[in-house]
């Protein structure tokens, strides 16, 4: 094996004028999806044929709007000095007692910290403990002990871990347990974490503490009419701040509840990407986003209403994005404070959208996270002069081990595997491969069609290829108000457009002026023709609501139904069935995770069937060698 290259070799000249942040370094190292070869193997083979197969979709430049880091607690930081964060009580002094079934009772003195990696239930028995900004007290009698705090942490039944059989992304999210009876491990020193990620302490500086307490006072004093939005560039610590803020507010005995407006379609806190949602939060937000999807039945993170922009960025239709956000905020009960999770696009179009948002949402408190463009700050201050502005100094960058795309696919995967929980129980994840889940058979044609139309946001597929585009892709299911549906889709469409259904859309546009908006493809798929300006009018958020994402598992053109897999429960679907529904497709990430789940689960091709659409198997020797048979050495003469 080749000796390990150090960071200098791996990333080139480190002593450049432009120092590379640890985050950027991690990004550079992580351009390759997990199922492909690591960078090391391919960095040296720069030839046209290997470049030719790489998609050019905006991930190669650092300018795209959908890229934002996300604070996860597992990080890859080769360049950071391991800090001793943990003043953990040691076993010897009786500070940690091991109870039955592996539960630990820990006595902590003032300002002492205990760090445990994994999943666990935490109960404060005596005293007060804080975790991620949340203040925890004993449920029975919150009396303060002079000599510290006693907490109990216990093993939980983890269903999320089962997902590691379905995707390598979920392997080793937490440390590997030495002890199978426990889902957590004490962490004495960040360096002793052998699961490849060293951990950073979450440090809340004084300035942040001050802003937090000011915001809390504000919330308690102003009859709770507070709407808070943190504004900051990607990886400026915005999401971390939002969580600490939420956890702090929720810990106030007078509050216990707040509303969270999730407006970051690229890195949502509570839902799959592409979704904007209003969530009622009644419990601290602790794990990474994929551990706490919001849903209508969740007692902790209850989804009140959601819209979809069917993309990880609002660049295609900023007006619709603002309209969705504005509509969602109408549903926010003014009794409770509202925390807005904006997205980290703070330049150009992103900046002007932020300005619109602060006004449209009547934000009262703006938290500015440095570094921020002075022009944007000034513009925000003039556009909402009533708001109070708080400024936070630059936060330490918390580099992540995952690319935004990887985080998104983990989140989407967790979303699809999430089982709607009973109101009292813990959320559960199904370990069944998504391809083995019985789909819903949704008819798309005929008098009893389960969906009215398929709408494309962003770029339109050619109608001839709508089925091919839709097959195996992610879509959003949107419920329309019946009234709106009647107005928008002419009710007589069904008879009127069937005749012209086989036409090419461009021809039929001129040849047969059809009364309805809905056209049909050769297969009978109903779609909405784009307007002459090239764009499809998005659904009006006032009269529509995104109910769920769905995976088009297959299209049965013979019987004219779509096979849809959704995380919705049967009873939820039963409610939806007789309502007007449309399917919205756009530029969701391709659900690569879904195509591979059963392969990872079985570890081999199972059964006799070998056809697997959209997936090629490449041998371990490397992608280039396997798919592309090289007829001569890779252009060695052209190498410098």
């Amino acid at each position, binding site marked *: 094996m080749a000796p390990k290259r150090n960071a200098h070799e791996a990333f080139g000249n480190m002593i450049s004028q432009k120092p590379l942040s640890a985050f950027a370094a991690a990004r550079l190292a992580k351009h390759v999806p997990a199922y492909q070869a690591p960078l090391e193997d391919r960095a040296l083979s720069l030839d046209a044929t290997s470049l030719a197969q790489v998609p050019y979709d905006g991930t190669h430049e650092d300018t795209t709007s959908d890229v934002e880091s996300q604070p996860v607690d597992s990080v890859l930081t080769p360049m950071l000095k391991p800090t001793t964060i943990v003043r953990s009580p040691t076993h010897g002094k009786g500070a940690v007692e091991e109870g039955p079934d592996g539960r630990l009772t820990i006595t902590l003195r003032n300002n002492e910290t205990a760090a445990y990696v994994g999943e666990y239930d935490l109960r404060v028995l005596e005293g007060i403990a804080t975790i991620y900004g949340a203040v925890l007290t004993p449920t029975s009698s919150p009396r303060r002990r002079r000599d510290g705090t006693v907490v109990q942490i216990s093993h939980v039944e983890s269903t999320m871990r089962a997902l590691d059989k379905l995707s390598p992304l979920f392997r080793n999210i937490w440390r590997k347990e030495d002890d199978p009876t426990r889902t957590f491990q004490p962490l004495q020193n960040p360096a002793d974490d052998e699961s490849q990620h060293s951990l950073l302490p979450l440090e809340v500086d004084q300035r942040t503490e001050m802003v937090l307490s000011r915001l809390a006072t504000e919330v308690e004093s102003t009859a709770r009419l507070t709407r808070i939005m943190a504004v900051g560039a990607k990886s400026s610590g915005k999401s971390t701040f939002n969580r600490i803020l939420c956890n702090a507010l929720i810990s106030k005995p007078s509050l216990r509840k707040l509303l969270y407006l999730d407006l970051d379609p690229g890195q949502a806190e509570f839902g799959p990407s592409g979704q904007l949602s209003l969530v009622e939060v009644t419990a601290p937000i602790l794990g990474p986003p994929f551990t706490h999807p919001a849903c209508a039945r969740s007692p902790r993170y209850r989804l009140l209403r959601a819209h979809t922009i069917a993309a990880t960025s609002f660049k295609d239709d900023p007006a619709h994005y603002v309209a969705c956000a504005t509509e969602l905020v109408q549903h926010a009960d003014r009794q409770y404070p509202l925390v807005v999770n904006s997205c980290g696009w703070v330049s150009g179009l992103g900046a002007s959208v932020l300005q619109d948002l602060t006004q449209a949402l009547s934000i009262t408190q703006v938290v500015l996270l440095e570094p921020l463009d002075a022009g944007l700050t000034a513009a925000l201050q003039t556009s909402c002069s009533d708001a109070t502005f708080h400024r936070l100094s630059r936060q330490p960058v918390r580099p992540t081990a995952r690319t935004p795309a990887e985080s998104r696919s983990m989140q989407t995967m967790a979303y699809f595997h999430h089982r709607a929980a009973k109101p009292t129980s813990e959320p559960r994840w199904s370990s*069944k491969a998504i391809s083995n889940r019985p789909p819903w058979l949704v008819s798309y044609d005929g008098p009893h069609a389960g969906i009215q139309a398929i709408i494309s946001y962003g770029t339109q*597929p050619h109608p*001839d290829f709508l089925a*091919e585009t839709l097959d195996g892709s992610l879509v959003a299911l949107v419920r329309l108000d019946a009234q709106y549906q009647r107005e928008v889709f002419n009710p007589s469409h069904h008879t009127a457009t069937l005749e012209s259904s086989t036409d090419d859309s461009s021809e039929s546009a001129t040849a047969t002026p059809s009364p309805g908006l809905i056209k049909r493809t050769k297969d009978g798929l109903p779609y909405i023709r784009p307007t002459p300006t090239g764009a499809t009018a998005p659904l009006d958020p006032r009269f529509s609501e995104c109910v769920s994402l769905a995976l088009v598992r297959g299209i049965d053109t013979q019987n004219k139904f779509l096979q849809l897999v959704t995380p919705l429960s049967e009873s939820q679907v039963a409610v939806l069935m007789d309502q007007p529904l449309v399917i919205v497709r756009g530029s969701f990430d391709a659900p690569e995770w879904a195509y591979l789940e059963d392969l990872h689960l079985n570890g*081999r091709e199972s059964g006799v069937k070998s056809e697997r659409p959209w997936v090629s198997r490449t041998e371990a020797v490397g992608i280039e060698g396997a798919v592309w048979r090289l007829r001569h050495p890779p252009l060695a003469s052209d190498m410098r």
Partner: protein
Amino acid sequence: MPRYTIHPWRTHTDLLTVRAQLYHVDTPAPDARRHAVDRILSCWKLRGNLPHAVESTALLIDAQLHHQSQNADRSDFALRAVYTAAFTRFVTGFCDIGRSREGLLQPSSMLDVAKRIGMPVRFVGLRHEAVHEELPSLGRLVGAVQEALRWLWEVYWSRLEVSDLNGVEGNGKVDDGEVENEVRRVLKAFRSSRRDAFRTNRQRAAEHQSEVEAFVEACGRILDSNSRDRRGVGMFVKVLVDERFLVPSGRSLGDSMDGAFTLWDPLLSRLVESHHTLPAALVQRLQAQLTESTVQSSKDVTSEAFALWLLHALEFSNTYAAHGSTDASLQAATLRTCCLYPGHWTTMVGQRLLDRDAELIADYQALFEASLLVANSEVMEEDTEVGAAIDCGPSELPISTRDELVAAKPLALLDDSTAAVGWRRALFAPCVPIGIVA
């Protein structure tokens, strides 16, 4: 550990078709290029993961088609703009990807990347000119685009692996009958070798072990023959099951099968280890035996033997299959068959499977019970109406049994609801990859 690549085309053949259409490899149909370009740009591109070479080719050809079209309205500027946009994206993409692949802090210039990857440096020059200076003249653009297409052919399209299915067709086609004879011969020899060993009580002797080893090798060769279409496995299983090799002769109802298992296990367990398609084939064949006669007599000795073998096969395929992984879909497929063919022995198999596995209970308990009710209340009869709800089960079964399967009564329970409801839950968990409608 194999790796998987996701691409927007469904199968490799689709990509080859598009290549032929774009480059006129053998189909000079006039609309073919247009069709291929549309497919790439307004379908594959939207699906994501489209290789830049494919996208570039489509863009460049789209520009050419635009030029060739008879539209009188288009201006000189429009033409040059289309060519320029396509060409610029082509060059920029390659250079950007090359830079990010290098992963340097100070990225190399486009020119450097072009040199390294063997892209003609005048491409980069022309791009620079088009972006920062005047739009190049039409003549130069036309020439450059043609050259770019040739270059793309060279670095990408020409290197696509041509499906080698065609190549194999002709050679080494062995007569099916011959293979079956060979299977029969080997199995018979194996059986008598084992019986002899047991009779003389030397089944553990090293000598006998090496005999078994030789049989494993012989069978392995048969299984590997025609491996592409997996006919070897099919024929092996067919002879093994259909010709009653697995059923002890002179067996009476309720006898233990342990003797037969002991006899065959050394061979089968080894073969399952080395041939991962064998368990599924064996299980299907056993299912087919059980379900072939619509009325299963509870007195049928052979059916009982097959039912016990079915359970045994599922068990040992879990134990011995490669990587020690459990193939839950195989169990589920079997249980599905048991639900669809309620009979004395299938019910027994189904019940045992349910007893073993909690996950199966969640999915199948209700269906299984329903199938029992129906089976008890009425006699199976032929029914020509095809239930629309079957979207998976049949694919796992031999075609010949499919018609019976759709006629199975439990499905009729659903027929009334199918017509009027837009949303229905599929009856079965599918066992095919995403994208396949069974």
